[in-house]
């Protein structure tokens, strides 16, 4: 765990001192400002639009930063050979991987929390009153970002290509939100044998709707998936892909 923490802190330092993190936050603040203008168009529903737009954008910006980091963190170190000076020390490949992922998770949490702070300030100025569902929605978004980042890390190691990993991860992100519709299609599809590949896919892609509290805000709490299920699903699913990534990294040669 000590090495994991040392590597995580190093990743955190890199992200904080790097331009991408700062640009993400600046861009997000700009877009939140634009959302105020959009909210004005919605008249009576200004606060709802500001709320939804802000949360959606925080999630997208968190995803962008995490995906960029996840697909490049290890491949970049392999190409730049900075990985040599780490793996030739008493550091296992698993510690290296988990350390880098933890750093990524910390950076994503910080950037999303910063954006959320600006967003909350705007909401309070517009007369919104605190609702704990906001925290649930934000946490759900963060966990979705982590699941997707874990997928991206594994895919980047499997394909050794940033572009391939990014493309497949984005497709899985989309499909993960369409899972209820996919399952409906499978149940009501024309012929079951034709649905077999889709059914197989539905068992593998991440169920991001489980964590999509942002879109379930209006639903009664009884209709939402139980919180314990969503918040245990996320680390388990991400953990599976990190273990896959670890196995792939252990087989890599440099």
């Amino acid at each position, binding site marked *: 765990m000590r090495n994991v923490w040392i590597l995580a802190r190093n990743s955190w330092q890199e992200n904080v001192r790097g331009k991408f993190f700062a640009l993400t936050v600046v861009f997000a603040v700009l877009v939140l400002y634009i959302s105020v203008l959009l909210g004005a168009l919605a008249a009576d529903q200004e606060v709802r639009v500001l709320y939804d737009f802000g949360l959606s954008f925080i999630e997208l910006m968190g995803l962008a930063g995490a995906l960029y980091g996840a697909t490049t963190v290890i491949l970049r170190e392999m190409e730049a050979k900075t990985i040599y000076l780490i793996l030739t020390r008493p550091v296992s490949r698993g510690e290296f991987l988990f350390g880098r992922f933890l750093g990524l998770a910390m950076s994503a949490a910080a950037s999303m929390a910063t954006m959320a702070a600006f967003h909350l300030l705007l909401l309070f100025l517009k007369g919104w009153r605190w609702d704990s569902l906001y925290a649930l929605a934000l946490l759900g978004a963060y966990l979705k970002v982590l699941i997707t980042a874990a997928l991206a890390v594994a895919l980047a190691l499997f394909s050794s290509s940033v572009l391939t990993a990014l493309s497949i991860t984005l497709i899985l992100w989309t499909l993960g939100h369409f899972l*209820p519709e996919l399952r*409906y299609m499978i149940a009501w599809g024309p012929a079951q044998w034709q649905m077999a590949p889709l059914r197989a896919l539905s068992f593998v*892609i991440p169920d991001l709707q489980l964590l999509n509290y942002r879109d379930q805000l209006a*639903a009664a709490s009884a209709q939402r998936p139980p919180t314990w299920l969503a918040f245990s699903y996320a680390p388990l699913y991400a953990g599976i892909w990190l273990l*896959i990534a670890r196995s792939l990294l252990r087989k890599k040669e440099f």
Partner: protein
Amino acid sequence: MALRPLALGLAACCTLNLAATRLAPAPKAAAAGVRLNADSAVEDAALLSLGMRRMAADLGLVRLLIYYGTPEEAGVVSEEPGSHPYLDPMHPELAWGGGHYPELASRAERVLDIDPSFTYVAIYAAGALAFNLNRPDQALDVLRYAAARNPGDVELAQYMAAVGFSRTGDKRRVLRLLEPMLSRPDCPTMIKNMVAYLYLSRGDRARAAALYREIAESSRDPGYRGIARMMLRRLEAPAASGR
């Protein structure tokens, strides 16, 4: 081989997803599916695919408000900046000269397809159809559309009753049904404006003025704020004008 850890991992994912499905069955999809507006289908589909259903509904509302807020005929001069050029606040139930807005109901229904819980859209559209455009049947259709997706929603039932009574001209009952809605946080300004008119029509200038004042001070709709300020000036003038 790299395939073995991948295969084991995929098997673990299957197990996890299967367990999640058993513990939290997915909500049933609507039989009619989701129908999208032709002019925004790509954006809406993109937002849905990104898991941003509520945002797609919000943009649908913005487009509906822009649609309804755009004059259908040119050359109309409005009395107050931001006010709707066709609206006579003293007689909002009269059909507007030149305003038809044939897509108002369908646009509202498309928003409800995306987010069935967004009843504000239904109430807004129904209010416009019933009290401004004099099309109560269409207003009831929209409210029924929303009620089918929100069974047990008392507010929608109350609005349906109000529209029903407005068809028969029973302003007293309409007022009685709409008054409790004023205190709801999601009450459209249009409904408040309608209630203020009903107060005026039965001679209750004080209540009408109080409601117009509330609209002028707190509404986020600049159009109705303009109307409210205009009405306050008329009400506070020594000789009130009216028909």
